[in-house]
């Protein structure tokens, strides 16, 4: 949900508006109609209703399955095995690839970004090469990966590393670069040296930006693992989707998509929770 960005403390008129919202007011029909929860219900009902209707009228031919068919399909997947693995096995296959690839990328990219931001000579050497590689979309590497590593696990992990490397590095770099320079002055005035500046200011101040980078990387990672699995795989959620396509069973495709969305969403929540725990001092800004 959104919260307004906390600005510097002026006793602005806007500060007290928030409280007004929490005030209890008497029930009225127009207020009920504009209530968030009511609108959410309307919206979701309409969404699933139209989905069901499209399936019912066969506008898209056999290209779609009704919501209930999708749920049934998920239930079926959870109770039987495809290609030797249950649904949980496939979820784990995808997640496992992400964990490995994501960790490799984060371990290399975050320190590299930090060092690039702190040392302009390193920056002068690494940045041009990075800029050359950066515009290549991660999918473009799939062919390379297959040429280099075959179609087994390493090629998929390679794609994830490549795809998550860029946002990790960029955010770490920007996080350090955008630190208020006067914070360094504080350390210098208190008698600290360059090492203290980096340890006391550089790292903690860049922490939220690094986390934002991890957050973006994570969603990139899901895209990458999925496309790698779509191209060639024998397990994973992408495999379920592509199986559904090859068997012409939209319900299976949709089931794969739904499970995927759910798992991706859960991992995002995990990172957000971790960040809340690690940076209790971070203020929330406007976000969606």
């Amino acid at each position: 949900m959104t919260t307004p960005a906390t600005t510097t403390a002026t006793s602005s008129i806007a500060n007290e508006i928030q409280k007004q919202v929490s005030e209890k007011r008497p029930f009225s029909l127009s207020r009920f109609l504009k209530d968030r929860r009511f609108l959410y219900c309307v919206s979701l009902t309409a969404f699933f209703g139209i989905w069901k209707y499209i399936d019912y009228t066969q506008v898209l031919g056999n290209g779609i399955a009704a919501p209930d068919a999708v749920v049934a399909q998920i239930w079926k997947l959870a109770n039987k095995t495809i290609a030797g693995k249950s649904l949980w096995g496939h979820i784990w296959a995808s997640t496992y690839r992400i964990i490995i690839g994501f960790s490799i990328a984060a371990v290399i990219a975050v320190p590299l970004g930090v060092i690039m931001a702190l040392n302009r000579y390193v920056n002068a050497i690494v940045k041009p090469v990075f800029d050359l590689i950066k515009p290549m979309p991660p999918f473009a590497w799939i062919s390379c990966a297959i040429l280099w590593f075959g179609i087994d696990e390493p090629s998929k992990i390679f794609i994830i590393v490549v795809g998550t490397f860029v946002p990790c590095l960029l955010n770490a770099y920007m996080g350090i670069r955008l630190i208020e320079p006067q914070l360094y002055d504080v350390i210098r005035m208190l008698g600290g040296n360059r090492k203290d500046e980096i340890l006391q200011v550089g790292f903690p101040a860049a922490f939220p930006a690094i986390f934002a980078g991890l957050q973006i990387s994570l969603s990139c990672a899901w895209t990458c693992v999925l496309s790698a699995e779509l191209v060639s795989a024998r397990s994973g959620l992408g495999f379920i989707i592509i199986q559904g396509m090859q068997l012409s069973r939209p319900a299976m495709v949709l089931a794969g998509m739904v499970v995927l969305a759910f798992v991706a969403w859960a991992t995002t929540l995990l990172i957000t929770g971790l960040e809340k725990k690690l940076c209790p001092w971070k203020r929330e800004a406007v976000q969606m």
Partner: protein
Amino acid sequence: MKKMSGKRKAKIEVEQLTKSFGDLLVLNDISFDVKEGEFLSIVGPTGCGKTTFLNTLSTLMPPTRGRILIDGEPADPKKHNISFVFQEPTCMPWRTVKENVAYGMETKKFPKKKAEERLKYILGLVGLTDTENLYPNQVSASMEQRIAVARAFAVDPDLLLMDEPYGQLDVKLRYYLEDELVRLWKALNATVVFVTHNIEEAVYVAERILVLSNKPTKIKAEVRVDLPRPRSLIDPAFVEIRKRVTELIRWW
């Protein structure tokens, strides 16, 4: 000419204004009135419900109890002209100085011809004619605040509320702008309610000062300032009033 006698008609009547947030009572039964063309200052200690007070007075926030009447009718921003000058400069960065000043009249749907004439007049009065085509980020912070003041006066307000508009400015600059404000007020015969934390400022500009208490806010005292203008900051009579008001709210 304005008559300084006490027989002016009451323009704004505030009756038993009360506001609470849940269990927290912020404004407690505040009643007062403002005469037509009067310059009223309101001072209070830091942390008194100043912001809430202004919010309810400007009808941005409905009061829990009580009402505000303008010319005997309940105040309504759609019908009455209520202008508000905020603490921080509120200029729209995508409009020029001229367009910013004109914004209020645009919203109030002034006839085009009248709006243009008035715009010219006000810009001249505030001395913004030379900079009328600049954008807010090309002028200084004090200029931005003058734009906001000009915009507020431009709509010929029934009630002009000011929330410590010159709080963060250099002293010399503040004196200049306060003089300018008084000049505008006289020229346009507006009804002004000026809220501030700065007692000297309040005494310098106002005809009458309302002193607020700590939360829950009540009116603690009323002080008349019958000094001739231009006022001198070191006039013993002036210092006397300043000291008296200070003692009423002193917490530091």
